[in-house]
C-alpha cells in the first residue's frame, strides 16, 4: 500500500450550463489499493462538489457505478487504482442519454429488461411446499442469476450503440435466467419476443458484453443458448 498521485480526466456535462460535454482533469492523491470510486469521491468531496455520479454499495453488488474507465466498461468500485494506472480517464457509459456528468438515463435500459417478462411464470398451484428442482436443473441457469443490471454489458455492445431498439445483452441474460429455469412455463413467449427484429439476432458475437460484465457472466454463451433454443425450438 502506497500513496500515489493520480491524474483523473473526467468527461463533464452540466445541462444547466453547458451546450456540450467537455473534459476536466483533476490530480488527487490516493492509496494505490483504493478503488476508482474512491478517487472520484476524493474529487467530489475535496475538489469539485458539482461532479455527479451514482454509487451505493461500493463493492460491486448493487450495479450503480458502471462507467467507461480507460476506454472499457467497468464498475468504478471494482477497479483498483493500482490496476488501472495513474492516468485514469472516466466517461459515462455509451448508448444511453447523458443527464449530467457520469449519470445517464437508465429508463430505456430498464424498459428493455421489462420487455422480456423477467419474472417466474407458472400457473400451477404448488400448494404449501416448495416446487422441486434438482441441483442439476438449478445449475442450468445459475450463471445468469448473477446479473446486477448495471448495464455494463448492454452499453459496451457496438450493435446497441447503433440501434437503440435492440434489447441488448442484459435483457437477454435475464430472459435466459427464466427460459432455462425448470419451474417456468413461459419460455416460448420469451423466445418469441427475442426472435423479433429487436431480439437476439442483432447480436454479432463481438464478445464485448462478456468482457464488460463485472459479475463474469458468460453472456455471449447465454445469448447463443437462447439463439439455439429458438432455432431448434427446444429449451
Amino acid at each position, binding site marked *: 500500500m502506497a500513496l500515489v498521485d493520480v491524474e483523473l480526466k473526467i468527461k463533464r456535462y452540466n445541462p444547466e450550463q453547458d451546450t456540450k460535454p467537455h473534459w476536466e482533469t483533476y490530480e488527487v492523491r490516493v492509496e494505490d*489499493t483504493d478503488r476508482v470510486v474512491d478517487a472520484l469521491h476524493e474529487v467530489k*468531496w475535496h475538489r469539485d462538489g458539482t461532479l*455527479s455520479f451514482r454509487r*451505493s454499495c461500493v463493492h460491486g453488488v*448493487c450495479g450503480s457505478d458502471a462507467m467507461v474507465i480507460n476506454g472499457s466498461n467497468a464498475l468504478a468500485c471494482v477497479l*483498483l487504482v493500482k490496476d488501472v494506472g495513474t492516468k485514469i480517464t472516466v466517461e459515462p457509459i455509451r448508448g444511453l442519454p447523458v443527464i*449530467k456528468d457520469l449519470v445517464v438515463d437508465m429508463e430505456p435500459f430498464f424498459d428493455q429488461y421489462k420487455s422480456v417478462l423477467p419474472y417466474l411464470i407458472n400457473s400451477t398451484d404448488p400448494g404449501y411446499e*416448495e416446487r422441486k428442482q434438482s441441483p442439476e436443473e438449478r445449475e442450468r441457469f445459475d450463471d445468469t*442469476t448473477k446479473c446486477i443490471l448495471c448495464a455494463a454489458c448492454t452499453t459496451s455492445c457496438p450493435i446497441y450503440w447503433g440501434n437503440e431498439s435492440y434489447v441488448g445483452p442484459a435483457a437477454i441474460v435475464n430472459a435466459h435466467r427464466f427460459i432455462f429455469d425448470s419451474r417456468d412455463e413461459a419460455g416460448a413467449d420469451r423466445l418469441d419476443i427475442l426472435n423479433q427484429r429487436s431480439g437476439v439476432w442483432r447480436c454479432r458475437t463481438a464478445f464485448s458484453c462478456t468482457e464488460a460484465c463485472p459479475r463474469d457472466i458468460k453472456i455471449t454463451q447465454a445469448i447463443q443458448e437462447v439463439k439455439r433454443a429458438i432455432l431448434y425450438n427446444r429449451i
Partner: protein
Amino acid sequence: MKIHRHSYDAVVVGAGGAGLRAAIETAGKCRVAVLTKLYPTRSHTGAAQGGMCAALANVEEDSWEWHAFDTVKGGDYLVDQPAAEIMCREAIDAVIELEHFGMPFNRTPEGRIDQRRFGGHTRNHGEGPVRRACYAADRTGHMILQTLYQQCLARDVNFFNEFQVLDIAFSEGRVSGLVAYELATGDLHVFHTKAALFATGGYGRMFKVSSNAVTLTGDGPGVLYRRGIPMQDMEFFQFHPTGIYKLGILLSEAARGEGGILRNSEGERFMERYAPTVKDLAPRDMVSRAILTEVREGRGIGENKDFVHLDLTHLPPEQIDAKLPDITDFVRTYMGLEPKTELIPIQPTAHYAMGGIPTNINAEVVVDSDNTVLPGLYAAGECACVSVHGANRLGTNSLLDIVVFGRRGGAAMATYVDQVSHADLPPRVEDETRERIERLKAGTGGENVADIRARLQEEMMDKASVFRTDESLRAVLETVRSLRDRWHNASIQDKGEIFNYDLTEAIELGFLIELAESLVISALARTESRGAHFRDDHPTRDDANWMRHSLAFRTDDGVRLDYKPVVGGKYEPMERKY
C-alpha cells in the same frame, strides 16, 4: 424549484426487501406508490449474502420454537417474544412463498431447498449448530431483492425511482402526506396519502469501518425523528465480526458456516476459549468482542496488531467455488489474496442497527411507552424496531424480518386505507423542505460536508462501537454536538437542480448526526452490558434495572429518554453461554 402534487392511498418509502414485499402485498388492493432514492435493484438487501433461516427441517430435525429460542437468546433477552415467535413461525411460509415467486435457492439432492449452518442457530435450545439457513450461494440477498422486484414488475407496481423523501406531514393525528425531492430535476413532490410505510434501511455510515452502502444514512428514521417519533433501542448496533480489514466489506458468516475458522497471531483458534460448544459460530456480538479482546491482549496481527485472520484454506476448493464464490472474489479483488491458500485479514465492521422506528407486530409505528399507534404510519426492515432482534440480531434474521414484517405491514396498511379517507394536508406542507434546501445551497460558513462526516465516522468508531465507557461516550457526545454546529455552517459547491448529490449528501449527514446523538445518549444511560452494547465500566447484564427498551425523543430541549417493558414469553432470561 417546481412543486408537483400527487394523491395515493398509500406510499412505500424505500425499495429494498421490506419495501418491495410490502408493495407486493398492497398491489391490486389500493393505489400505492413506491418512492426510492435509488433504483430498487440498488438497495442494500442485495448485499446480504449468507442466507435466510426458517425451520423447514429439510436436512435435519428442526422446529420454529427452537428458532424462536435462538432469536430470543441471541438478542440477549431484549427481544419481544411474541414478535420473535411470529417471525420464526411465519419464516417457513415466507421461504416457501419466495420459492414460489421464483427465488433460485440452492437445492438438496432430493430437489428441496438446501440449508446450512449459521451463527447462533442451534438444535434443541443450544445443543449444537443446526442447518437452518436457506440460501442461494453467497448472494441470497441479491436473489431475494431481484425476485421481489420481479414480482413487483409482474404486478405493475408504480415506482418513483430516485425520489428521496425528506419530510412527512400529520393532520388530525394521522399521516396525511410526504414531501419528496426528485434527484433528476431538483423538484419537490407532495404526496397526499392516507398511509406511509417506511422501509429505508439502516444508518451504518455513521461509523468509519462499515459493511453498509454509502447511501445508508438513516433518512427514514431521520425524517420521523425530527417530527417527534421516538427512536427505540438505538444503543444496540451490531458489528459483524468478519469485515475485510479497513474496507469493512462483509465476508458472510456463511464462511464460518461452511467451516471457516478465526485465528489470532499465534495461529490459535481462539473462539474455542470464548464459546466452547459452537466456537466460531457464536453470535456476532460475542465473536466481535472476542476478536477485539485478542487484539487488546496483543494477539492481533499486522503492523499495528489490529486484525485477526479468517482461515478458509482447509476447505475443499470446490466447496469454496460452489458455496462462497462472491466473498472469495471480494478477497481477491480488494486484498489481492487467494483465499483457498492464504489467510484473510478481518476486523469487526459496523453492520446492522437493531434499533430504529418503534413498531408493533403489524408494522404499525408506536410513539410512546404505552405503544400508542400513530394511524397511517408503518415501518419495516432495518429502519424499524419490532423488536425481534433485541440487543443483538442473529445472522439471517434480517432477510427474514424484511419479508415477514414487510408483508404484515403491507397487509395492515391495505386494510387501513380501505377504512379511512385522506386527511387534509397542512397548508404549505413543502415550505420547510424547500427552505432547508435553499438554506443549504446558500450556506457560506465554509465547512466541508465530507470532512464533518469523516470526523463523525472516526469518532463513532473509536468511542461508540464494540466497547464503550462512560468516558468515551461523553467524549463522543461532545464531538457529535460540535459537528452538528459545524454542519449548520456547511457550504456546498453545487447550486444546481439536476442530480445534485452535493446537496443530498449534506442532507443525509444531517440525519446521521441526529441519529448518532440519539445512539450515544441511549448508550450513556444504559449502565449495563447486553448484546451488542458493551460497557467496560458496567460489564454485566443487569436484568433488574435494564430489562426494558429505551425510547429517545428529540425535543427542543435536547434528547429525552423514556423506557418501556420488554414483552416476555416462555423463555426466562438466563446466562448467555454458547
